[in-house]
């Protein structure tokens, strides 16, 4: 076979198994990490309940989807869950504000230590986790509808004549596009609007922002709403891409925290970078490069093993290793976040 075809095959292979999945997974992580980093920047604690907030948001979206489906409403080739998003965001936002009012605001007024907030967020995590389990049960739920693939592996092979197929799921594209849009909106909000600037000022220097007349409660309120919206979006996109299981979001907490810290905590842009760094590392480190090397290596050389750095079960280890490396080498993260 010609070498150039091999090269193309190798490229398609990597795109199919590494590039595309990492882009969509990275977008989901990034959305989650931005929420965590915003809460950290404004309220100055690591919110352990963030994963459960994603879970809750996704659950609301599933219920709304079922409701729409039962009424025969759908959005054509797009998943019905996209229509459900606004409702899910609204309800999750309300929930986040309610939690803040009933739990966190108390400690804020007393100026408690950050670790008290963290413990409180663990309590919230428990409650949300239980609530989600009670409302929707513990089974795996697939709520994707509409068109599944934009490009099917077989069709791609036929079209290009390559031996490797490229499959592009609609949810992957949707994830990426929605993530980009929401991030752009968020940055416009933070850079250009009065409230957005007030949030940045508050995160930068709390005392001075108070002296400038910025209302801290309002800033906190807006922060929760944004964090909840992003969490819902991330949760729904993840659930569409894979499936919904109540426990899955707890396990996403670690990569999300890793992404936020890697990017520089308190830095939304850093959190996005961090999301992709973590996703790419995770998928690259657990991908078996056997076939890839077979295509690229001259002659008929085929590697013995799978050429896989880590088995997929050790995904967590990757985000954790990145986290540890960053903490050791550059504790402030890629973009200088808060020096802690």
């Amino acid at each position: 076979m010609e070498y150039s075809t091999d090269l193309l095959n190798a490229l398609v292979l990597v795109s199919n198994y590494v590039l595309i999945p990492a882009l969509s997974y990275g977008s989901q992580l990034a959305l989650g990490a931005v929420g965590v980093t915003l809460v950290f920047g404004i309220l100055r604690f690591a919110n352990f309940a963030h994963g459960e907030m994603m879970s809750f948001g996704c659950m609301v979206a599933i219920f709304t989807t079922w409701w729409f489906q039962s009424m025969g409403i759908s959005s054509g080739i797009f998943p019905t869950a996209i229509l459900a998003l606004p409702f899910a965001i609204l309800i999750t936002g309300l929930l986040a504000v309610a939690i803040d009012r009933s739990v966190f605001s108390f400690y804020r007024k007393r100026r408690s230590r950050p670790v008290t907030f963290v413990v409180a967020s663990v309590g919230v995590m428990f409650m949300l986790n239980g609530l989600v389990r009670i409302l929707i049960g513990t089974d795996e739920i697939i709520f994707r509808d509409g068109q599944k693939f934009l490009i099917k592996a077989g069709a791609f092979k036929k079209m290009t004549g390559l031996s490797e197929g490229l499959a592009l799921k609609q949810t992957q594209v949707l994830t990426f596009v929605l993530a980009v849009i929401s991030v752009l909106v968020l940055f416009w909000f933070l850079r250009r609007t009065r409230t957005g600037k007030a949030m940045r000022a508050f995160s930068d220097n709390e005392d001075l922002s108070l002296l400038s007349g910025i209302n801290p409660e309002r800033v906190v309120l807006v922060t929760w709403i944004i964090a909840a919206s992003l969490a819902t979006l991330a949760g729904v996109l993840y659930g569409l891409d894979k499936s919904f299981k109540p426990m899955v979001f707890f396990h996403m907490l670690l990569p999300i925290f890793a992404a936020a810290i890697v990017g520089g905590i308190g830095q939304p842009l850093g959190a996005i970078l961090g999301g992709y760094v973590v996703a790419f590392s995770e998928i690259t480190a657990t991908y078996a490069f056997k076939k890839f090397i077979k295509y690229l290596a001259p002659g008929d050389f085929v590697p013995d093993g799978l050429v896989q750095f880590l088995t997929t079960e050790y995904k967590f280890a990757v985000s954790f290793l990145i986290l540890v490396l960053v903490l050791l080498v550059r504790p402030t993260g890629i973009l200088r976040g808060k020096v802690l």
Partner: protein
Amino acid sequence: MALLLMIVGFGQSWNVALAIFNLCLISAVMSMGLNMQWGYAGLFNAGVMASTAIGGLTAILVSYEPVAKAWSAGGSSLTVALVFLLLTIIAGVLVWKKIPKGGKRSWSMTAVVLIGYLFMRFFFDQATSAIEAVEPAKTGFLGGLGLPIIFSWLAGGLAAAGLAWLIGRISLGLRSDYFAIATLGISEIMISILKNEDWLSRGVKNVTGLKRPVPYEVDLQQSEWFIKLVSWFYGTAEDGSAVSADVLREAMQLSAGVFVKLCYSALFLAVVLIILGLATRALNSPWGRMMRAIRDNETAASAMGKDVTSRHRQVFVIGSAVIGISGAMLTTLHGQFTPGSYIPLRFTFLIWVMVIIGGSGNNLGSIIGAFITWFVWIEAEPTSLWLVGHINELLAETNPLRHHLMEVAPHMRMILMGLILVMVLRFSPKGILPEEAPEHY
């Protein structure tokens, strides 16, 4: 608390009550360990589970009979892999020390690690596949040392201490939130290792049939003295006549279960008392006072010349060792090791609830917190099922909600736990037994 257990004893059964009591004792050890870290020193350890799990692993490594076939199949390759691991570490340290900081060092370091890893991985893969191929349905792992399981309690503590020392090297000295996240990560990794390294722990195939430190029910029912004991206890009915053999046999089975559990209780209680004694002494020693001083004002303590990070490491290691002991105890009690059962909500955050409810910084409080929390955690399920049962009576037979409610009722306890944690934190942050004010001197 004793009253509550009595109620369960009469209401459900004595076996259930004692089972709860034993787990309460184990939980008490866990919460005392965490209390040292959180209550004494203010460390937010979100990886309690890592210590429990490594303690559990130690239990099988100490007590299981060595699998000779597996050793002969994969032992040599495993040794080679280990040698390569050591060589890589030595080479890495040498590179780090000899080559000055800069690009050259980073590259050599990467090269050393990568090459070492590849070599190690090669032999390691050989070893593991050979080991796991040995009678996979029965063993397929290396087994352990074949020692009495009770030794593993100590060994589990030591293993957890070692792990904690490593974790502490990496993540102590960071801000509390980072420390929490790092420990959370390590516990997740620990569980993945246990689930997937079949050669070590049989992974999700579980290790069952661990030897017990106490007699078996079956043996008891055949041993002379036990039969006599039970006959003496139950042998005569209220009117003084002898009871039938059937009744006696039933009583025998019941008592055997109770007796075994009581043996465990005695062992566990001894551990709890020893640790409580040591922990209280430590808390009131100059070391304990210094710990609290550091917790209350890190800046001031470090300005006074206290090495905050190394003190933190100390207390983190000791606390983890205590939790490790409890992990080994838990595996001993269950007689089996099931990596799949380790979930952070149960093994990390529930312990947190115990410590905070009981009163951070107070050892006795931690024990009480452990008892209450475990009791609620266990009894919340039958209680909510009972509640749901009553609600369901109001619903129509065909109502789909009925089924759903029955299914999800057990999860009520999650909400309950969260609620308790948040409530205690807010309205009674000092817990049931507040920390005693340090004596002035």
